[in-house]
């Protein structure tokens, strides 16, 4: 392992190029906005990164298996209004509500995975369709105006602190460690990479490829549901479009980190870098005091630029 083989060298270059972008960005924002590095702001970024991070980790599982999930935002908004609706702001309801919501997530993941894998429909068609259905169901359920409140304990999860550390960030760290261990150490993780790289070869080696792929969608949706609980606590309100944009943010985080959309390459560490970059960009744009419309445009441009730059780097150096 001491020898820098071609493969690991390529990998580290890939990682380094995105790290370079991250560092340039950090330095740039420090010069433009000196108060950027105040502890409070950093903690704020970590807190904001938490819910994006959890759903991006879920997305990582799907992408590693060679798929994509465009229904996470709709699912998250559903979970957000359901949470308020079911608990009506009462803490006593939280212990059973959260498991129920995670199960709802698992169910949606199962539907996605089953149609994609067993009926062989392209993932983006299925998940986009499911997203629209979920949006419709949510609007019927709420009649356009969500009711109920976010319980105190959920608010603690989303915006509370232990000492100076945001609780959301701790949840995020936990999910991150578990994901990493599952991907790197568990049989399931090894199978997921194998299926993402070459489904045919995996099948001929006796891996139950259908099961593995369906499981990746279930994991993704459960993580999206968990992320929605944290998000609810953070925004402290039930809103029909609370998670709008989370599809693209989660995919952007995965891709920015360097996980390949073709499947089989990447992992938790990669996605983490992507999540941090997204958190920073969002934060700096807010710091710059741009109007919300300009914020959207600026954010999208930075993403496209970063991905283009980094894919260019990966190609020339590798």
């Amino acid at each position, binding site marked *: *392992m001491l*020898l820098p*083989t*071609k*493969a*690991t060298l390529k990998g580290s270059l890939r990682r380094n190029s995105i790290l370079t972008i991250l560092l340039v960005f950090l330095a740039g924002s420090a010069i433009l906005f000196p108060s950027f590095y105040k502890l409070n702001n950093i903690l704020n970024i970590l807190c904001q990164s938490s819910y994006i991070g959890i759903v991006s980790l879920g997305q990582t599982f799907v992408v590693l298996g060679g798929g994509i999930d465009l229904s996470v935002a709709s699912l998250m908004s559903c979970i957000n209004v359901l949470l308020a609706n079911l608990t009506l702001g009462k803490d006593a309801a939280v212990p059973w509500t959260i498991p129920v919501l995670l199960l709802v997530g698992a169910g949606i993941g199962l539907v996605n995975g089953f149609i994609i894998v067993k009926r062989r429909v392209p993932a983006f068609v299925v998940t986009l369709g499911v997203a629209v259905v979920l949006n419709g169901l949510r609007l019927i359920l709420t009649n356009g105006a969500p009711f109920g409140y976010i319980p105190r304990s959920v608010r603690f999860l989303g915006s509370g602190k232990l000492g100076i550390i945001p609780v959301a960030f701790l949840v995020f760290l936990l999910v991150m460690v578990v994901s990493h*261990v599952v991907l790197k*150490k*568990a*049989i*399931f993780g*090894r*199978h997921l*990479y*194998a299926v993402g*790289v*070459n489904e*045919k*070869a*995996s*099948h*001929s*080696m*006796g*891996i*139950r490829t259908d099961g593995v792929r369906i499981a990746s969608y279930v994991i993704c949706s459960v993580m999206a549901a968990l992320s929605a609980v944290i998000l609810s606590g953070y925004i402290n309100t039930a809103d029909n479009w609370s998670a709008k944009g989370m599809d693209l943010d989660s995919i952007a985080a995965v891709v920015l980190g360097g996980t390949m959309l073709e499947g*089989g*390459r990447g992992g938790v560490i990669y996605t983490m870098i992507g999540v941090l970059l997204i958190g920073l960009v969002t934060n700096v744009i807010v710091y710059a005091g741009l109007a919300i419309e300009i914020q959207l445009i600026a954010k999208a441009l930075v993403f496209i630029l970063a991905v283009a730059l980094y894919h260019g780097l990966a190609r020339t150096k590798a």
Partner: protein
Amino acid sequence: MQQGSGVVGGNMGEPVLEMKNISKTFDGGKALDGVNFSCYAGEVHGLVGENGAGKSTLVKILSGVHQPDKGGEIHLWGKKCVIGNPRIAEELGIGMVFQEPRLIPDLDVAENVFIGNEPMKKRGSIDSKRMSELTKGFLRSLNFGSLDVHTKAARLSAPEKHAVEIARVLALNAKIIVLDEPTSSLGLNDTANLFKVLGGLKDRGISIIYISHRLDELFQITDRVTVLRDGRLTGTLKSTEMQREQLINLMIGRPLNMVYPEKSGSRSRGDPILEVTGLRRDGVLHDISFKAYRGEVLGLAGLVGAGRSELMRSVFGLDPVDGGGVVFDGRRKSRKVALKKTMASGFVYVSEDRKGEGILSSLSVKENAIVPILDRISRMGFVNDRKGKKEANHIVEDLDVKVASIQQEISSLSGGNQQKVIVGRWLKLNPKLIVLDEPTQGIDVGVKQELYRLIRRLCDEGVAVILISSDLPEILGMSDRVIVISDGRIAAELSSEEATEERICSYFVEGKSY
């Protein structure tokens, strides 16, 4: 086609095509080595050789898919040309008709004929009327005048598809047409019809390069025949003067440059481990019964597409089965059984498609080596990485895999070393029967011999080996028994003593439907 007409193209003036000193080196080795090939106007020039002899590489160089190595030259009508890509080849008048027609099913006949080459009106829209007229003309000249040019390609019969493919290259104004095994999907009548078409093309001065495995056809239709073997030119014969035996000799009579380990003969042969009875897969396999014994190498010979791989894939469980039974290790093997269970019971299959079905290309050697044994080196669903490394290292040492580290990406290894990792990982399951499908394809000589020794070693240990190979010397050198498959049927079963290249080869050809 009468042979007399061969004189027309015989030695009339300058050749329209000359390929001089063509070599082509791939990662796996030399596919072509200093081949010369020429073609006259109005000549039908047969191109033959075993699978892997270099026919398709030569044709791909002519059609711009591959570039020849330095030193090779292509002259068309006396002028030196560089055929950089297929588009240039088309512009130069070289037309390819593939074995499997590549028509677009949702487009009609005329649209397929003129795809990418549509006649335009002045305003820039497609002139469909002219397109239909021209297509009708081409089809008439091909004796397919009755075919409606507005039929969708999906609804055409095999010979009609071929006619459309040929019309397509005519529409491109091709002067040299390559036909790659055009009769493999045709019956007797359709073949006769095709020959009439070729006669018509010949009369128009079009040269035809005709690739075929059916030797009889060569005598019927060609003016000259060029034989390739192991990437080298072994002879160019005039069809009127050549003999059947001579042709076969040029095709297969290579110097025995490979040393095969000594066979164990009947010494090591034990009980049957696999019994297949009446196996059927509609349209592919017909009533196949055979046995494989412990401690023997059973060779499966036959042409590509004869059903060798299909047979073993169906027996193993990768492909469907429509009837018949399989008994493995004394127990009836259910058709529904999971592959994983089949493997665990000691039956493994190494695919011929190393890249598509063997390796996990962007993963490390270690990952590739341990996938089938993950649950054996895991506890509660979590892999013991130390054990994994140990197992992977064991494979690397045992089979002498040339690799800097087991963390190296497997795609950076040579084909031979990739193959060693693949075979090694199956040996980890302690198989009782191992099917090797074209295990030495694209592998250099050194590693080939290591694999041969390994096969023999396994055999001596009582493992049954089924070897599928298009390389006849390999089949002869390794097999204790040979089964020849032709058209999805068992054409012959030969003992090691009975099996000769000529004999096996004769079943390839004779077994075909005539």
